[in-house]
């Protein structure tokens, strides 16, 4: 009898947890932003603009999806900005010798190697979260230096090619390909994180590495795989970007890491690891996308946007961190 009530209670708990404020808060923020957007800028709520928003966030979103894995597994990756530049430069530069398809395969290979490079260093030095920040700061510098060396500081222009053009500007049933790539990757990553053994071990590794190790999870392999997933997604983002902008420079990635961190953190994934999911990241990505779009519709300059973003991220993080806000809401719902 008691066991039945207990299970009922836990089910109730699970139900409540599923609708915790941490999940709903960012969503409410997103809805508010959309409402503000449609009031402030009449052109916001047009089909063209919505597709535009999604199209613009797809590159950022791909990185954010991968970063979710890395952050949940308790690491961090600052090298993605450098890597976005590097893979963009490589895929364009190699196009002549390898052909479009070959250069894309080559870029993915490089991404796998780069992710393994980060993961292996972290494994060898047995570093923690703080170490991963500085190490990936260093590897990011190496990546962008290689990009600079390879491109000699010039903008590389891709060869016009239907396949290459398709990634940035193609459409399937009037929906741009970047959006489809982003949404399909989001679904795959969601399934991977939620419904597979690998996903579960990512959570466990982040929540308690020692416990995970003792229960037989190869934590280093899990973390390295997270780095590899991130690098591959970033590389695909670089492909989309160089196809859209018809050029690749060694400085293309500057500021990318901030947007990605912002998206993941605003969505509500904790930087402490072990918690978070793809849906939250999606909400975070959309918030950043709508914000960027609103900034442009309002007419803020690039520089204003940098300033505004810095402030907004801090405020979002503070709101997420304030324990009294959470306990207050819990009390409102009568949970004491």
């Amino acid at each position: 009898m008691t066991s039945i009530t207990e299970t009922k209670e836990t089910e109730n708990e699970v139900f409540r947890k599923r609708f915790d404020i941490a999940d709903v808060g960012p969503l409410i923020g997103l809805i508010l932003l959309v409402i503000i957007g449609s009031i402030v800028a009449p052109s916001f709520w047009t089909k063209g603009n919505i597709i535009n928003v999604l199209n613009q966030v797809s590159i950022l979103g791909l990185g954010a999806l991968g970063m979710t894995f890395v952050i949940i597994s308790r690491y961090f990756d600052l090298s993605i900005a450098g890597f976005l530049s590097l893979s963009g430069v490589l895929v364009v530069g190699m196009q002549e010798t390898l052909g479009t398809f070959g250069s894309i395969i080559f870029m993915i290979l490089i991404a796998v190697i780069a992710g393994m490079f980060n993961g292996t260093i972290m494994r060898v030095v047995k570093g923690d979260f703080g170490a991963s920040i500085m190490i990936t700061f260093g590897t990011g510098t190496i990546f962008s230096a290689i990009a600079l060396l390879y491109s000699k500081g010039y903008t590389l222009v891709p060869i016009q090619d239907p396949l290459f053009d398709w990634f940035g500007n193609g459409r399937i049933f009037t929906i741009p390909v970047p959006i489809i790539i982003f949404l399909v990757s989001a679904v795959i990553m969601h399934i991977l994180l939620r419904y597979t053994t690998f996903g579960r071990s990512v959570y466990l590794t982040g929540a308690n590495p020692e416990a995970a190790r003792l229960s037989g999870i190869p934590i280093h392999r899990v973390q390295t795989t997270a780095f590899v997933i991130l690098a591959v997604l970033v590389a695909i983002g670089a492909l989309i970007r160089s196809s859209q902008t018809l050029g690749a420079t060694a400085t293309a990635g500057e500021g990318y890491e901030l947007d990605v961190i912002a998206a993941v953190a605003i969505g509500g994934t904790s930087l402490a690891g072990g918690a978070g999911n793809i849906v939250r990241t999606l909400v975070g990505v959309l918030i950043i996308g709508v914000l960027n779009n609103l900034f442009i519709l309002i007419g803020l300059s690039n520089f204003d946007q940098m300033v505004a973003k810095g402030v907004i991220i801090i405020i979002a993080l503070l709101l997420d961190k304030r324990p009294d806000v959470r306990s207050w809401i819990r009390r409102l719902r009568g949970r004491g």
Partner: protein
Amino acid sequence: MNYVQMLYRQKAVVILVLLTLYAIIFAPYFLTGHNLSNLFIQVSVYGIIAFAVTFVILNGQLDLSVGSVMAFSGIFMALLTEHMHVFLAVLFTILLGALIGLVIGLLVSYGNLHSFVVTLCAMFFFNGLALKLSDARPINVQDPFLNMVGNGKFFQIPVLVIIFFMTFVVGEYVLRKTKFGRNVYAVGGDEQVARFSGISVRFYKIIVFVISSAAAAFAGVLLAGMLNAASPFVGGAAALKVISCVVIGGTSLAGGEGGIRQTLIGVLILGVLDNSLALMNVHSFYQTFILGCLLVLVVGWDYYERSKKPELAA
């Protein structure tokens, strides 16, 4: 065996000596008075920030915003000098720097946010502000006083270098000889223990950021004096350079280990590396590459050593 251990413990000094020897042999121009004075002028602006950032890193925090705070302060001062006396402008700029540090420190200590996220946001914030205020163009700063500080000489020694060594002495004194310095180490070494022994952990978390941002503002002033202009683009690689200096010298990112002396060695290593590569006509892209590799190696080595320690104890 003992000598090997001693050398190993002083590996930063060994690296510096080897690098200097390498530079002397392969770049004959290296050992001229003119070049050496150039080298010291080049390192002094970054070095001053590096000394201040040592406090932050000793405390177990990170500050990625120093570069953009430096750029922003230069612009801010350049705009102020058009309206008021230069001394007042410099004073206000450094005060503003301290205020920036105060805000960052409050966010880190009371907001309970990770310092790297806060300073990363601050980096973009001030970068954007500097670009906006200056319209992405360098602003001319023509002032005899600032020019004297930036380019003047005092008994054949550049004023900048004198300021650099003065900050070194002050920093070293504060860290080694005062209660304040000891507490910075204590908080970085173990926050919990520091709290239990009655140290106001929050105060130290805030004050280290005040020091680093004020120093960044000061460096911005010096740089504007040196270049006779304030540019919004000077901060780009500063965070990387400064943190590399501190870490390569041997201050541990985990906090509580290292010091100003180590940072001086780190600053000199980077200075000699930059200078000798430039003398040998190596492209600056390679310098970035080498810097990145060095950073990964040193940080990695530090954590690797750290991970081995508890095993020895067990």
